[in-house]
């Protein structure tokens, strides 16, 4: 039987590196930063108090689901019918159902769909362009203290 060659592109949520994986992949180490990445979709049906929920896939929060986290980060968007608490960062769309609610510090999303009746409290930035690898590196270099000049002289007095 021929093997399925379907592949999808994902973006490492830790370093921003983009690479391809099989559609069946559930977790993979990032070739750039070597950190383990979760790729599978997550379904939350009950109360989930955690520090971080991170995946390159999609997060679905069912009607009775409640996520309390410091950071919720995902690649393929979030579909919420329950309650979300914490900072959200997603490359996809955030969909809030009619009985859904979000409360958190920040919400960075590519797009946002709010149904009538949904609750939303916090800072929102939509659309949000995640930093690419090169941009992230450039920002990191810019944040570093200025390198000492080649002859080691300082401009100061």
């Amino acid at each position: 039987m021929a093997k399925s060659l379907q592949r999808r592109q994902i973006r490492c949520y830790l370093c921003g590196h983009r690479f391809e994986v099989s559609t069946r992949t559930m977790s993979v180490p990032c070739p750039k930063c070597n950190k383990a990445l979760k790729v599978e979709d997550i379904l939350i049906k009950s109360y989930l108090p955690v520090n971080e929920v991170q995946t390159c896939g999609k997060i679905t929060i069912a009607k009775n689901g409640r996520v309390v986290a410091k950071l919720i980060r995902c690649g393929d968007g979030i579909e919420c019918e329950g309650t979300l608490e914490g900072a959200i960062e997603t490359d996809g769309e955030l969909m809030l159902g009619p009985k859904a609610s979000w409360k958190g510090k920040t919400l960075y999303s590519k797009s946002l769909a709010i149904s009538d009746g949904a609750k939303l409290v916090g800072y929102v930035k939509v659309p949000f362009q995640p930093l690419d690898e090169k941009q992230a590196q450039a920002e990191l270099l810019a944040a570093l203290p200025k390198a000492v000049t080649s002859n080691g002289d300082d401009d100061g007095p």
Partner: protein
Amino acid sequence: MADTTTEYGTILGADSNFKGEMSFETAAKILGRFEGSINAKGRVNVADGSKCKAAVKAKEVSVEGHIEGNVDAGDRVELKPKGSIVGDISAARMTMADGASIDGHCRIGVNGHAGKSSANTEVKPAAQSQQQQQQQVAAAKK
């Protein structure tokens, strides 16, 4: 299609440039540039291509253009595909179309809209019952 002139009592034309404070009893449509503050009892429509650098307070706010300032809607905020708001939003309900943009603090559907939330002071029933049980155990020991 509804006639714009009958739907909106006040229309600020596309070539107009207004600075100051405006208040409306019914609905208003802004097609030009506005700077200042808007206070309306009805609906305010910021049309496509228009720019508002203003604090907008109304029952309903529909945005197809650009608003730079805080938006406070008693009923709903409607963001159309080309609409953008840079500022804080407070409303009972909000709908947002694909392509619209927001940059600011949102407070939607929380006890009306005017920041009277009791969510932060919520006491969990489970925690309460645990405290009561502990007190009962302590009293029994005595």
